[in-house]
C-alpha cells in the first residue's frame, strides 16, 4: 500500500510539475493523468479508461485566468489510483473522486497563496543582480510547493484506505445519485467561467448556434469545430472588408472637404 500510495502521489506530482515547467496545462488533463497513473501503477488499460471517462466529465472544466472550478488533475490521480489499487469501477470511484477534486482545489489555493508570499524573495534576488539564483529559485519553487498536494494525496490513500473501503461500501444510495447529478451540473460552472472570458453581446448568437447543432444533429465535436472555423473565417473577411470600405469612404470624405473636384468622382 505504501508503494501504491507513493506512485499515485508521484503521478500527481509529475503531471503538475510537468505542466508548471513546460507551460502546458494539457499535461494536467484527466486523459493524460489517468494514463500516467496507469503506467506507474502497472495497469495502463484501467488508467486510460478512467482518464477518458473523467476527460469527458471534466471537458468543461478549464482553468483560464487562474480561476478553476475544480482540481481535475487531483481528482483524476485519485480516481485512477483507487480504481487500479482497489479494483473499483470508474463509476464507484467517481462518487469519491468528484468531491476529492474540490479538496484538491482548496489545497491548490493554499499552494498559490504560499507562492504569493515568496514574491518579495524573488524580487530581492533580482535587485541584488543574482540572476542565475533567481532563475533557479523560480524553477525550484513549484518543485518544492507541489510536494504539498502530492503529500496530501499520498496520505489520503495510505491512511484513508480502510476508511475509503468502508465509506464506499456503506454509501447511502441517495449520495451516489446526488454525486452523479452534481457531476452533470458542475460543468456549468466551467462553462460560466469560460463565457465570462470570451463573451461578446453582439456575437452571443454563435453560442446558441453551437448548442443547437450539437443538440439536434448527431455530429462529432470535430465537425462542429470545422463549422466554427468556416464561420469565423467568413466573419473575419467580411469584417476586414467593411473596415477597408469605411477607411476609403473616410479618406474620400476627408478629401472632399479639402478639395471640391473630388466630388465628381464620388458621384459616379
Amino acid at each position, binding site marked *: 500500500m505504501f508503494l501504491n500510495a507513493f506512485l499515485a502521489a508521484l503521478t500527481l506530482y509529475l503531471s503538475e510539475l510537468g505542466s508548471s515547467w513546460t507551460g502546458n496545462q494539457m499535461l494536467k488533463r484527466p486523459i493524460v493523468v489517468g494514463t500516467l497513473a496507469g503506467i506507474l501503477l502497472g495497469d495502463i488499460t484501467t488508467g486510460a479508461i478512467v482518464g477518458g471517462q473523467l476527460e469527458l466529465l471534466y471537458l468543461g472544466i478549464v482553468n483560464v485566468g487562474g480561476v478553476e472550478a475544480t482540481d481535475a488533475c487531483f481528482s483524476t490521480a485519485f480516481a485512477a489510483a483507487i480504481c487500479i489499487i482497489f479494483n473499483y469501477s470508474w463509476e464507484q470511484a467517481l462518487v469519491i473522486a468528484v468531491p476529492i477534486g474540490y479538496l484538491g482545489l482548496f489545497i491548490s489555493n493554499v499552494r*498559490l497563496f504560499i507562492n504569493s508570499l515568496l514574491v518579495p524573495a524573488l524580487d530581492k534576488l533580482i535587485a541584488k543582480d543574482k540572476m542565475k539564483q533567481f532563475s533557479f529559485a523560480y524553477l525550484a519553487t513549484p518543485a518544492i510547493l507541489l510536494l504539498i498536494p502530492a503529500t496530501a494525496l499520498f496520505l489520503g490513500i495510505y491512511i484513508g484506505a480502510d476508511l475509503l473501503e468502508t465509506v464506499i461500501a456503506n454509501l447511502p444510495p441517495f449520495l451516489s445519485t446526488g454525486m452523479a447529478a452534481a457531476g452533470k451540473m458542475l460543468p456549468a460552472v466551467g462553462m460560466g467561467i469560460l463565457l465570462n472570458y*470570451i463573451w461578446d453581446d453582439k456575437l452571443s448568437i454563435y453560442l446558441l448556434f453551437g448548442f443547437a447543432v450539437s443538440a439536434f444533429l448527431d455530429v462529432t465535436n470535430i465537425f462542429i469545430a470545422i463549422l466554427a472555423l468556416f464561420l469565423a473565417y467568413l466573419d473575419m473577411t467580411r469584417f476586414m472588408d467593411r473596415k477597408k470600405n469605411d477607411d476609403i469612404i473616410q479618406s474620400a470624405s476627408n478629401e472632399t472637404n479639402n478639395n471640391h473636384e473630388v466630388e465628381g468622382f464620388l458621384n459616379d
Partner: protein
Amino acid sequence: MTKLTEGLSKEEIKQVRTIFFRTFNVAACYNHVRQFGHGCAHTLRKYIEWLYPGEENKEKRIEAMQRESVLYNITPFISTLGTGLFASMEKEVKENPDFDPSTINSIKVSIMGPASGIGDSLFWVTLRVMCASIAIPFALKGSILGAIIFMGSFDLVHFFCKYYLTFISYKAGSSFIAKAFKNGLLPAITRAATIMGLVMVGCMISSTVDVPFSLAFSAGDTEVALVSIFNDIIPGLLGLLLSLGVFKMIRKKVNPNLIIVFLFVFALAGAAIGIF
C-alpha cells in the same frame, strides 16, 4: 524558415530562439500577485544579460529585469507573442535613448487581455476540444494511444504557433500592435476567435452539462418524466439555462466557488428528496 529569421544577425537569432525555449517555463511560478510576472523576467533573463553584459551594465540589467517582472498574464500557449515583443522593446530601450521604458509595461497591460481572449478561445476551447474528441475514444478502449494522440496533436499546433510568434512579434516590435489595431486586423482576429470559442462552448454545454431531474407525474394513465418534456422541445435545454444562469452570476462577481458549493448542496438535497 529563411523568411522568418530574415534581417536578424546570427547571434540575435540564437538569442530569440533562447527566448522561445525559455518561454516554456513562463507559468512555473504562477501566483495571484504577479501572475506570470517573474515568468516573463525568467524568460527574458538570457536576452537581457546579452543586452547588458558584464559588471559595468549591472544597474541597467537590474532595471530591465525589474521592469519585466512587474505583471504579465497571457494564455501560455501564445506567451511568445508577448515575450518576443518585450525583448524587441528592451532592445529599443538600449539603442534609442528617447524611447520611454515605461511604454513596455503599458503595452504589456494592453495586449494581455485581447491576446488571452484570442488564445483562450483558440487553444483552451477549440483546439483542446478537437484533440480530446479525437483522443477520448482510444482512451475509453483502454489504450495508451489516447493520451499520446491528445498531447501530440495539441502540441503540434502549440509548438508551431509558439515558435512562429516568437520571431513575428520580435521583428514586428511595438509598432506592430499599433498597426494591427489601426488596420482592423486585431479586432477581426478577436472576433473570429470569439466566434469559434462561443460555438465550441455551445457545443460543450450541449454535450457535458445536464440537469438530470427524474421527477415524473401522472398525466391520465401514463407517467410522464419531467425531463423528457424539456428534452422533447430542445434536448439539453435545462443544461443551457443552468450554464447561462451561472455565467450571469459570475458576471455579477459572485464567487465561482460559492456556486459550486450551492450546486453540490442542491444536488445532494435533491437526491435525498428524490428529484434526481
